[in-house]
């Protein structure tokens, strides 16, 4: 692209580090989700978070980046950047004038990856893995890429309209949250729901995962400044503040309602705060971050209690966490945005901007939900016509680690490991020699 533009060492360093930080959110999410499911589904859930690192990256390099960011019309990018064609060391001033174009493209790749990974929380413990992979590729192509183009792409119609989304509140969180809600509806609830207590198998995993998400979110939000600048510092500050307010709000709600603060709750509260500040990070003051984080937790907590009273099995409450907090964050951006903070932004409701910005934000949320919800249902129904999407009752009972992956997170029960490698009850390790019928080697 325009190689005459000076590449800034500082900006490039910050964006590369931010890219790596966002990448770390993916294993962070794997731990966060993996800890919340039952032990027999731990690997399957973690793989659902990690697999997009592979498949979405491949899709991104081949066509995803082009569909999202290449010059096109208001609704979809062209194919001029396919295979990272013309995406190289020079800068692309349309998006970031001071860093190599390829650095921008890789930074954006991480967003596409984590968006697909987020959806998985709604379908864990019952979706067949091949169907999930197919869904991931189709969803990122048909939903994420156009949406990224609308909001961030050159000539995208929501961007032209003036919708504010600093780091992906609508593109990532509202779209993933809505897709999660619809996917949970289409797949139906797990057979065991209502019959057995379903408790997290490793709360420490979930806490550590939330910690990694929080850490990576600095790259997600402050990195979205695309410069090592005052704007990045501002986004950094409001990101941390909102997470802290979210954690605090949940702890207080817990104390008031049950008298006991829960670890899962604290972790969830922090993540909700982070989700809510994502669209607002570079447009609002640090003080506003406190309010956004806390208000989003009240909304998400309420949504979770309502969801728990329905038969909807959004297993890890992805809609309540990411959908509801994403919607609140996007709307509150229209309330708290200030041109004093960021001249490139807008003045929100409390800064004399009237309801205009709130209205634009609401429109962006609405079209995101319609696009994501409608196409998610379409993709899943189409997949159901050509392959098995839902796992069998038998594999739900033995766990998807074994039925989908042929391996287990926690091998051998109490008695199996007592007997040494042979296994006291014949479980444990069995040597498979060539010629053994495939049916005998594993389950289903």
């Amino acid at each position, binding site marked *: 692209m325009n190689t005459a533009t000076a590449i800034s060492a500082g900006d490039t360093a910050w964006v590369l580090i931010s890219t790596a930080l966002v990448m770390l959110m993916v294993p962070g999410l794997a731990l966060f989700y993996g800890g919340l499911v039952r032990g027999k589904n731990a690997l399957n859930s973690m793989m659902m978070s990690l697999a997009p690192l592979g498949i979405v990256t491949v899709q991104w390099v081949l066509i995803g980046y082009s569909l999202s960011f290449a010059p096109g019309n208001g609704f979809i990018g062209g194919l001029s950047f396919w295979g990272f064609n013309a995406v190289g060391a020079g800068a692309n001033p349309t998006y970031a004038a001071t860093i190599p174009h390829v650095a921008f493209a890789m930074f954006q790749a991480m967003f596409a990856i984590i968006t697909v990974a987020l959806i998985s929380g709604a379908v864990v413990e019952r979706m067949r893995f091949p169907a999930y992979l197919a869904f991931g590729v189709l969803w990122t192509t048909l939903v994420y890429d156009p949406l990224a183009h609308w909001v961030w792409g050159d000539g995208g119609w929501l961007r032209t309209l003036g919708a504010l989304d600093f780091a992906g509140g609508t593109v990532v969180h509202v779209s993933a949250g809505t897709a999660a809600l619809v996917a949970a509806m289409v797949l139906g609830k797990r057979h065991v729901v209502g019959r057995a*207590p379903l*408790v*997290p198998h490793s709360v420490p995993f979930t806490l550590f995962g939330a910690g990694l998400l929080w850490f990576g979110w600095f790259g997600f939000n402050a990195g979205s400044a695309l410069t090592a600048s005052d704007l990045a510092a501002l986004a950094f500050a409001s990101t941390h503040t909102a997470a802290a307010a979210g954690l605090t709000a949940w702890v207080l*709600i*817990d104390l008031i*309602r*049950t008298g*006991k603060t*829960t670890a*899962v*709750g604290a972790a*969830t509260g922090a993540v909700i705060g982070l989700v809510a500040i994502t669209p607002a990070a570079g447009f609002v003051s640090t003080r506003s971050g406190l309010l956004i984080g806390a208000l989003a937790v009240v909304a998400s*907590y309420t949504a*979770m*209690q309502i969801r*728990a009273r329905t038969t909807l099995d959004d297993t890890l*409450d992805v809609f309540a966490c990411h959908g509801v907090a994403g919607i609140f964050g996007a709307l509150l951006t229209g309330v708290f945005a200030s041109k004093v903070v960021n001249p490139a932004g807008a003045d929100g409701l409390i800064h004399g901007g009237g309801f205009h910005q709130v209205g634009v934000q609401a429109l962006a949320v609405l079209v995101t939900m319609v696009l994501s919800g409608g196409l998610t249902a379409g993709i899943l129904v189409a997949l159901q016509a050509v392959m098995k999407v839902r796992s069998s009752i038998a594999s739900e009972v033995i766990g998807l680690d074994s039925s989908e992956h042929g391996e287990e997170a926690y091998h051998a029960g109490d008695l199996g490991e007592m007997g040494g490698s042979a296994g006291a009850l014949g479980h444990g390790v069995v040597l498979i020699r060539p010629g053994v019928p495939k049916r005998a080697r594993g389950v289903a």
Partner: protein
Amino acid sequence: MKLVTCVVRPERLQAVKGALFEVGVTGMTLSRVSGHGGETEIVEHYRGSALVLEFRDKVKIEMAVSEPFVEATIQAIVRAARTGEVGDGKIFVQELERVVRIRTGECDVNALTPVTADEVQSRQSDYELWKAET
């Protein structure tokens, strides 16, 4: 001979073990069990949703004892396991038909008399000494 089985609170296990050792009962088998007595249920919360844990963790101890030890065993368990609250557990005593010590083939009361590893070792070396002499 009786098979004495008791179910006690996990937090009383160390005390029960100590009391049994004091009265000379050293042979025992432990297992973790879950169960339900008259105690109130535990309530946990995950993301605001209440979850009732119906069963409580307990420890089950099984001991095969010869007649003179039965009463002492029962008294020791009661003394050490009692807190006075609901959920202290129970003791079950059953008639025992036959006991075999796998190592030696000894039967019944002979099989129940505790033999420690030290004793076995000294007997073994006595045997080897005797064999070397002859």
